[in-house]
């Protein structure tokens, strides 16, 4: 799959933002919890932050697979000041697509099985349980040409970096016309030169 094939089909609607993720109280979360791994809580049809800050409903993929996609997304474009919610929003579309497209669901689930197999071959329980980022990225490098990797990375270019919450984290101010542009708001305010 061409790496940036997103750019010719261009569905380019903004991906689900974390505002659209489920809101759960900690009590609700704990009552629905069936498994815990890493910083994520897995339910039968959802995954959530262990502090209940956010949760995402999983429609077609296994909750473990969605948790793996979120970890993969962070390992591909690691930003330590981004919450998992931003990565969850960026990969949520794969679950939506898997719900409508069985072939795509297989691509994702088989890809994740291969990822876990590669982790096991490297002496880890699975991808999620691989402790160091460098060990996980080594696994990803070995599968860089796989459909799973290409799909996830290609989707992240827009899925992650087109979120206004991400722009704010990166220090970008977004739309300016509605604020009168930058003529009186610091277009030439550089002071360190």
């Amino acid at each position, binding site marked *: 799959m*061409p*790496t*940036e*094939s997103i*750019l*010719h089909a*261009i569905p*380019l609607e*903004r991906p689900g933002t974390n505002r659209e993720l489920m809101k759960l109280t900690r009590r609700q979360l704990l009552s629905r919890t069936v498994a815990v791994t890493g910083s994520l809580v897995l339910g039968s049809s959802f995954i959530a932050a262990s502090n209940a800050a956010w949760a995402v409903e999983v429609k077609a993929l296994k909750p473990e697979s969605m948790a793996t996609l979120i970890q993969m997304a962070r390992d*591909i*474009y*690691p*930003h330590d000041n981004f919450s998992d919610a931003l990565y969850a929003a960026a990969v949520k579309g794969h679950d939506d697509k898997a719900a409508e497209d069985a072939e795509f669901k297989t691509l994702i689930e088989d890809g994740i099985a291969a990822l876990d197999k590669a982790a096991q071959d490297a002496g880890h329980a699975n991808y999620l349980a691989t402790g160091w*980022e460098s060990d996980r*990225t080594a696994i990803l490098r070995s599968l860089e040409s796989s459909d799973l990797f290409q799909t996830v*990375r290609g989707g992240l*270019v*827009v899925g*992650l*970096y*087109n979120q206004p919450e*991400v*722009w704010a984290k*990166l*220090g*970008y*101010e*977004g*739309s*300016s*016309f*509605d604020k*009168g*542009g*930058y*003529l009186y*708001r*610091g*277009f*030439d*305010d*550089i002071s*360190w*030169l």
Partner: protein
Amino acid sequence: MSAPFDKNDDSVVVIIGTGAGGGTLANELAQKGISVVALEAGGRHLPQDYLNDEWPSFSQLAWTDMRTTSGSWRVATDFPNLPAWIVKAVGGSTVHWAGASLRFQEHEMRVKTEYGDIEGANLLDWPITLADLEPYYDKAEDKLGVTRTHGIEGLPGNNNFKVMKAGADKLGYKDCHTGRMAINSKPRNGRASCQQLGFCFQGCKMGAKWSSAYTEIPYGEATGNLEVREHAHVLQIEHDDNGMISGVMYADQEGNRHVQKCRIACVAGNSIESPRLLLNSASTMFPDGLANSSGQVGKNYMRHMTGSVYAAFENPVHMYRGTTMAGIITDESKNDPSRGFVGGYEMETLSIGPAFMAAFLNPGAWGREFSSAMESYSRMAGMWLVGEDMPQEKNGITLSEEKDQFDMPVANVHFDDHPNDIAMRNHAYQQGMAVYDAVGATQTYPTPPYPSTHNLGTNRMSEKPEDGVVNKFGQSHDIANLFVSDGSQFTTGASENPTLTIVTLAIRQADYIAEQMNSKAL
């Protein structure tokens, strides 16, 4: 007769495309009292519609109909169906352009003479000189309101410019300023002044930047002599038994086909669509496509030597605040073969938002090196490098196996860098990084070319009919009432952003067409 015109009215001039070339030509002819039908494949978007949001704006404006690519250029790998980043809308790519308006240099009109024979390059001197263009450059600069010409004040420098200027000064560059820009520094000719929005590429919501969408087109329409048909996607140009153009066939938004008869047809669909249309119009009389007795239609495609340098600094820059192309260093645009290549390049500030940065900084890259670069976004400065590339006969537009929504073969865009292009890019990267290193860059990012914004040369102008497609007025060597009115008529590309020269050629061509019509030569 006034607009709208009947499809059987064969007295009209049909112009295909409404961008820098077509839009300007349409207005110039309409002002002279000539009846014009302009066929525009896209819809009409005006400043109130433009979006300060990169991807949604791209969806609104960009030409995303299928195209294919081949060749060793990286765009063919990273963006195989997006060889060019140009606009499908009334106003064409003048909606999207940054506004840089530079005249060609004298030697750039005669590069075969100046550079000599270069292996693999299909160099040719233009059949006109800078002196021929100067009076028209004057008119074009006045029309566009180009800063630093005609007594128009320059724009103020933004943060991105200030970083470039400080670096340029440290390196000893002499000619660095806020550019000659078709962006109003003061209200002028009904257009507002720049409020430093930072979204020049998404369409200027102030209307401070010149675009034919809200100048030439409505001015022409106001005369009653210009009719613009939107969503009129031209499929073929038709000719009569004498080999003269008789009409233009197009599909409307519903896919219904129509033929507009005409006295003259002018092709201004840019350097990808214009040759594609001539090739798709092949007939028994013209089996290789229209205007193609030379075999040069679609060949010698140029896209400028480009690349970008972004740099991260310790402290904030906020490069995205203010005009996208906020300043220029012109010192490297001379021809100085001692640098290891012929021709020259301009260094122009550039900024893209994080959404586009993620797609274009280093397509395909991932991991902490990439995300660390993204995290430096607010501390980043950036520049675009744009220089003369070598015309090569093998680079060009051919008809693909793939068909478009109207069942017409799409354009395949083939491009390989010439060794001269590569040597120039490497030099430009080094100099660009040196500019930023001189003011304390902590990281520099030599960024590969984006999908092409400057598409040139595929119906080139030549003195002799065997060397090119059109004569010195953009008139087909083969078919007298067929003109090319866009950047595809460029013989060579020069180092300057092409829009001002496209507008200049269109104004000159309008005078010629009017004269030919008056004298009944056409």
